[in-house]
């Protein structure tokens, strides 16, 4: 991956703005406002007060879900990739494609309608992406390096600490990039019920009141949140995996 500069961001933004305007002009419907209108609504909504509260609430839910999915999914994926039997893998294959959203009624019954159920739903959706990505990264570790650590007298712990874990780190970052995007997208669903705050509910309410400018302001905020995660992750990967960075 080449290093990015500010003008790369500027050019990408310009392409997106041009695409937006072209679409808005050709559709010519209030359901898809012009960029200027959406931007105005965005500035108005997020310059303070409830807008930021929406943003922070969603940010909290996405971050916590991601952390939980990592804490559960990384060991699970490492285990499946290194020593997991066929049963564990079949289970993951069966569970991964299930649309987790259908469990929403059950989740609400068990966990209530508060934050817990929302965070659980998001975690459930992204968890298997973590498991599968980390599992494949761990399974791809070369036998030669394991032998090398063994021949130095290394125990299973040393093999894990010096080979499996570092070899899986780039895969873990790939998983993170996948799931933060998904988690933000799932907000829209998780925040449709019983919440005052959250970007999902902001979009949902604006939609039902046909305030399309505000609706797209919420969408923009989601995009920005996802974008922020990517920038943060790229930076973290450079710090944590310097060897991979110098290979580029």
């Amino acid at each position, binding site marked *: 991956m080449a290093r990015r500069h500010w003008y790369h961001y500027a050019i990408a933004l310009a392409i997106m703005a041009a695409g937006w305007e072209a679409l808005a002009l050709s559709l010519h419907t209030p359901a898809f406002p012009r960029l200027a209108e959406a931007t105005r609504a965005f500035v108005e909504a997020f310059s303070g007060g409830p807008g930021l509260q929406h943003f922070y609430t969603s940010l909290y839910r996405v971050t916590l879900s991601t952390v939980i999915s990592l804490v559960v999914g990384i060991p699970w994926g490492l285990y499946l990739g290194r020593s997991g039997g066929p049963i564990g893998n079949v289970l993951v294959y069966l569970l991964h494609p299930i649309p987790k959203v259908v469990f929403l009624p059950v989740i609400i019954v068990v966990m209530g309608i508060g934050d817990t159920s929302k965070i659980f739903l998001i975690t459930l959706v992204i968890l298997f992406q973590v498991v599968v990505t980390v599992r494949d990264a761990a399974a791809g570790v070369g036998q*030669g*390096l394991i*032998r*090398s*650590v*063994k*021949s*130095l*007298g*290394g*125990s299973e712990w*040393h093999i894990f600490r*010096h*080979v499996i874990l*570092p*070899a899986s*780190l780039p895969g873990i970052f790939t998983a993170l990039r996948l799931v933060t995007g998904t988690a933000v997208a799932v907000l829209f669903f998780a925040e449709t019920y019983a919440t005052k705050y959250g970007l999902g509910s902001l979009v949902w309410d604006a939609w039902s009141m046909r305030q399309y400018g505000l609706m797209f302001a919420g969408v923009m905020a989601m995009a920005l949140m996802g974008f922020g995660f990517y920038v943060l992750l790229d930076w973290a990967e450079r710090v944590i*995996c310097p*060897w*991979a960075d*110098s*290979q580029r």
Partner: protein
Amino acid sequence: MIRAESVGYSYKETVALRDVSFALPAGQTLAVVGPSGCGKTTLLSLIAGLLEPATGRLTVAGQPINPRRPGTSLIMQDYGLLPWKTVRENAALGLIIRGLPRDRADQALAEIGIRELGDRWPHQLSGGQRQRVAIARSLALDPDLLLMDEPFSALDALTREEMQDTLLSIWQRHGTTMVLVTHSITEAVYLGHQIMVLSPRPGQVVGHFQNPSVGDRRSRAYHELVNNVRDALEKGVAQHG
């Protein structure tokens, strides 16, 4: 140092080694020569204790083989350097695993002439430099038995001779017992006090030579021995291949 009596090993139905016997006194070097797939690597893995012999008896320093034996150090064909560790961290890996102070790694890097590369990543090094890191990692552990699997096969001819000289000087300074697996006859005769020739699979000893001309590429004895080893190798291939 090493005593092998009728050692044999099989991978499932394939017999890799059959009836291999030799004795290597401490402080001597043994070069094992043979065609590809003759079980040379298997023999090293057995001595390193990574595999158990199926038949026969194998002892190192009078003890049955043991993968945790602290004095044994194995250098693998692909060097086994971890891409996510710098040269210094790679050289210190054995020390870290054994809970020993790391400064011996710096000494080893200095001894082998690559101290200034300590902060590089393995992928930034040439083949010869990587080989040196692998040797430094072993030396840091102050081994009494050094096992090497085709250590120089990936190097160009000049670097290769340079590394052979480096290895020879390490042996002269430390008196380390060494077992070196190679498919190069000249390398075997340059570095081995003993030269053992294996036949194609299943690997059997088809020649065993004592070598008085270690470390001399120009003497008559060297060239004669090279020819003798070549004869044994070709006869082994003709009979078993």
